[in-house]
């Protein structure tokens, strides 16, 4: 793919943010821009609101982990401008040895709510500023880790026997999360030991 297919937004981003645009590349006709994690929110907000960019539609948020363990984790935002019929992919690289944290874009796009929850659930990446960052596809008491990470075996960390034991020992009351119990104002009526269990561990806080 030649330089000719690079999205014109890259030049505008370089003019506006200079060194914060780490590098860009074109793959299969799609332009990918790498930015530092600390600046991602600011750059995404600019792309959304700048009259020349108008990337008003958040197509997707996801993450990528490579088989090569040396390579960093990537968080990927797929942006689209409905009016300009243009696409742009923004990426942030996260060092696996440091805490996996990026800023939430929930304040820009409400659609980010469940997408960020899914990335948190599957990769263990936290989004600062997300109002309700809980597991979404796995249950709240899931303790095996983050399924889409490469160090997660296809069949899970626990043996089948352990998985069965945990399923049978599951407390059906735990299916009502703390949040739901509180919206019904029923939390105060719970027995003290259950409150204690809800506060520790059983709400899916892995580690």
């Amino acid at each position, binding site marked *: 793919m030649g330089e000719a297919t690079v999205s014109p937004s890259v030049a505008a981003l370089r003019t506006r943010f200079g060194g914060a645009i780490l590098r860009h590349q074109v*793959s*299969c*006709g*799609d332009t*990918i821009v790498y930015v530092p994690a600390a600046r991602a929110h600011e750059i995404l907000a600019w792309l959304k609101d700048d009259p020349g960019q108008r990337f*008003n*539609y*958040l*197509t*997707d948020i*996801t993450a*990528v*982990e*490579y*088989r*090569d363990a040396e390579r960093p984790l990537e968080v*990927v935002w*797929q942006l689209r401008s*409905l009016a300009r*019929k243009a*696409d742009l*992919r923004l990426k942030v690289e996260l060092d696996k040895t440091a805490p996996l944290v990026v800023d939430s874009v929930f304040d820009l*796009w*409400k*659609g*980010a*709510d*469940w*997408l960020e929850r*899914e990335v948190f659930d*599957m990769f263990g990446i936290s989004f600062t500023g997300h109002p309700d960052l809980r*597991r*979404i*596809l*796995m*249950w709240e008491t899931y303790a095996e880790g983050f*399924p*889409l990470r490469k160090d*997660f075996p*296809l069949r899970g960390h626990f043996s089948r026997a352990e998985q069965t034991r945990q399923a049978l020992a599951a407390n059906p009351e735990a299916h*009502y999360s703390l*949040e*739901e119990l509180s*919206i*019904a*104002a*029923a939390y105060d009526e719970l027995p003290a030991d259950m409150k204690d269990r809800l506060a520790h561990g059983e709400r899916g806080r892995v580690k």
Partner: protein
Amino acid sequence: MSTRTLEVSLGTATLDPLGNVITAPLGVQLPAYPAPQDDLGGEHMLINIGPQHPATHGVLRLVVELDGETVIRVVPHIGYLHSGFEKLGEYRHYNQIIPLTDRTDYLSPMANNVCLALAAEKLMGITITERCAVLRVIACEMSRIISHIVWLGTTGIDLGAFTPFLWSFYQRERIYNLQEAWTGARLTTSMTRIGGLMADIPDGFETGLRDFCRTFPKVLQEVDTMFTRNAIWCGRTQGVGPLSAEDAINYSLSGPMLRASGVDYDVRKDRPYLGYETYDFDVPVGEHGDIYDRYRVRLEEMTQSTRILEQALDRLERLRGAPINVADPRLILPPKSRAMSDMEAMIFHFKQVMEGVRAPVGEAYLGVENPKGELGYYFVSDGSAKPVRWRIRPPSFLNLAVLPKLCEGVLLSDVIAINASIDIVMGEIDR
């Protein structure tokens, strides 16, 4: 170049001169509801709907906080059908992922197959044959019709109308018969391959599909007569669960949910694939973003799909006997007879089955207009025959995320109607 309809001309006036939504012309003025705290003492009630409830269209669980019969808050819980498809995809060759896509949006399996093949072909830089593109368009539009028609039937049931369910499932059966003749399966079709198709259409398929295209619009007219001006239907749907265009975009909605809110965005028009820009069809767009407009948009989309099918059938006649697969033995399996008799063909067969098709290093995202919305597949490749990452951008997942907003302040029975209007399929949401 085809024209685009900017708005559906609504059969019923839904706004009065002041801009207020007119609800059903039932002729009965209901008294205002008494304040709920009168009999409940201000206590809110928590109700659990699902995961095994027929009105949740699968295994969706809704926790609803009620003040009397008014919904204060809805908390959806998903994941009961999680199968780890994205993880499984990382352990499979590109062609082996196709059966997984059947099982995500199981109401339109052929459209998913097409999307996967297109995404992998974008990654590998393959151009498919003309006949293959036309057949894939036929597969996509057949899927759109069966998906929308199941939506129509089940939503009718959710709102208390049983008759359209029988009509729609009869029509769905006709498409299923054609699908079965083509792919050998009603649901697990797996009909595409990277660079082509699993099989060409069988004898009699074109006649059968033409017959369907001729008679199906009559059924749509019957549905239109039954519903569009029906007082009960209008009362249950007009002005219920409305969403503005800005919100629809902000919530990343797609498909009929987005268009019903007045955003004329259709991937087939705006980012054409499979030569959709050469077909003559219109994109229906609603005005109010309520359940009624979603119904109108889907009904019209079925008519437009029939138009596309007819055009595609005309093109097929011109392309009779043309190849469906690219002429690349590294991609396409040789015929079994050749693999058994010809050494070279056998080697290619062996390499493909054992090693799979290698993709170059890179990544590709491709979105298609599925019946539920924009389905996108995002592949990241490290040069091996298995993707590093296979991401599904599930339209139902993003469309369902707006449910709590739509349900604020409605009545409990409207939650069922709004949930039905989103047209979710849990296989795709939970993946």
